[in-house]
């Protein structure tokens, strides 16, 4: 996903990654998160992303010229890998239970949790979405005034 030159290839592989993660959510018993991941992430966010990429009509000359891309990615992977291996070895020391497929994480249980213990963060999320909406409208409006 991080290696493609064209952003549209990256976006399509990001959709594949998100759908795989949705399947893992279903395997872990998060049926509501499985639906939310498919509908909101793969269905709305990345589709909006693809729409913007196609809307901008990106030509070859507006893409950044990255001749040493593979070398940069290799170097950064070498730099990040000690951190990753440390975290993996830390996780390996913990004894985890194996997967148990029982009735857990149903939509009703998640909804009860969301509307009893998490009401205040839920409302704050709605205010945040409103602020994002206003901010996007202001940005788009300023752009049309300049033209």
């Amino acid at each position, binding site marked *: *996903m991080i290696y493609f030159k064209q952003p549209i290839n990256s976006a399509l592989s990001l959709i594949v990654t998100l759908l795989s993660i949705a399947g*893992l959510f279903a395997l*872990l*018993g998060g049926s509501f998160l499985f639906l939310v991941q498919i509908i909101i992430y793969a269905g709305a*966010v990345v589709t909006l992303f693809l729409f913007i990429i196609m809307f901008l009509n990106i030509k070859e000359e*507006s893409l950044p010229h*990255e001749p040493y891309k593979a070398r940069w990615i290799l170097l950064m992977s070498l730099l990040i890998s000690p951190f990753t291996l440390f975290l993996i070895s830390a996780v390996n020391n913990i004894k985890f239970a194996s997967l148990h497929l029982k009735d*857990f994480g149903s939509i009703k249980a*998640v909804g009860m949790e969301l509307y009893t213990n998490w009401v205040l963060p839920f409302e704050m999320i709605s205010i945040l979405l409103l602020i994002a909406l206003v901010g996007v409208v202001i940005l788009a409006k300023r752009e049309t005034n300049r033209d």
Partner: protein
Amino acid sequence: MIDVGHFFILGILLFSIGIVGMISRRNIFVMYMSVELMLNAINLILVALSHHYEDLNAQVMAIMIIAIAAAEASIFLALFVMLFKNARSLDANFFTLLKQEKHHDEL
């Protein structure tokens, strides 16, 4: 046998791939998609924790993260459209408006 630890390892690997993509690429679209990948890795770890402790609080946190990512995506895309209209480029090295100038004549 697959246990919850393997989901942790996958989440850590996805997060590292996101960091590598964020640092080493200059295309702003790919940088933003790396951020999305990191958010998804954190979501995967949260859901694995929720499965491990059989507690639904982590799943609700993951829902909050998805909502925040949706808000973030809209603002990012509006900014990208503005930047592309102004500069006709997707290169992150091009957007250096906040960089300090070399000469300080007015100071």
